[in-house]
């Protein structure tokens, strides 16, 4: 999946990276920047060293997006919002809720983020995730549950703070 020649990202890999990045950034241009950054990092990666290219790409994408999310970002939907969400108030609330989730995701540990992305976004099995990340299945499950617990706690505390 990773190598076109030895180093260049194939289009389908770029698409996958873009989809991950968009999910974590909710901004088209930032997702493109992240995709480009991941492509550059892939170019620097010596060929043949990657046993689990998909897991590597996901890990690098997550890192890249977390770095980018440290700066304030605008929510910028790629597709047009549905008709029932056209009102500015609804759109604002929706963006606010995305921002809260993204901020909560940013507070997770790197491994929790990777596991949650693989499980929730990519619908991989715990066994696949464990193989990709080089971890035991039980460890992956623990990261999954702790990640969800942290996410819930952060989001709950945000809801409680808001009037």
């Amino acid at each position, binding site marked *: 999946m990773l190598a076109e020649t030895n180093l260049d990202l194939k289009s389908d890999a770029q698409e996958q990276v873009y989809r991950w990045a968009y999910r974590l950034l909710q901004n088209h241009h930032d997702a493109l920047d992240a995709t480009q950054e991941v492509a550059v990092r892939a170019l620097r990666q010596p060929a043949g060293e990657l046993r689990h290219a998909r897991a590597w790409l996901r890990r690098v994408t997550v890192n890249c997006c977390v770095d980018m999310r440290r700066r304030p970002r605008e929510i910028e939907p790629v597709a047009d919002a549905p008709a029932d969400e056209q009102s500015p108030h609804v759109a604002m609330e929706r963006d606010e*809720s*995305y921002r809260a*989730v993204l901020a*909560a995701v940013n507070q997770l540990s790197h491994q929790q983020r990777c596991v949650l992305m693989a499980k929730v976004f990519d619908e991989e099995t715990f066994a696949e995730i464990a193989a990709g990340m080089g971890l035991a299945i039980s460890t992956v499950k623990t990261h999954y549950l702790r990640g969800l617990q942290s996410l819930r706690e952060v989001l709950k505390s945000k809801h409680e703070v808001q009037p």
Partner: protein
Amino acid sequence: MNRDEFESQLADYLGGELNADERIRFEANLRQDPAAAAEVRELTAALEDLGRLPAVSQVEAAMAVRDLKVVRRWRRQRLAVAALKAAAVLAIGVALGRMTAGKPADPSEREVVYVTKTTSDALGPDGTHPGWIDIARTSARSSSSMVTGLMYLANAGRS
């Protein structure tokens, strides 16, 4: 069931990795354990929050990546054009500089230089040191050609 076993099953349950029988059994256990049921509700809510983040379709991703390639190509072309422009402007600037600053000094100036070198204490007809006059003339000429070159560069850069 101890805590580790419960967590393993909970992860499988939330992750959709229990088969139908295991799922029914797990849910039956939850009905008897309100605390565990509350925990499951909380974690399910977190999963829903995460899952609500909009995703892009394969088609949208393909179009976006195509944009990326276009942007890359466009950036490369823009860089190449800028480099060519800079090289051309630099070459013209150097040529202009040489044309104006590279002229041989006229005979009278050569004489002044000669006088300056041979009789360093001699004063010119206006009472100033000829060496200073010569140096001043030379540097003024160099400055003028440098200014001409820079103005040309600035104008070329703007265009």
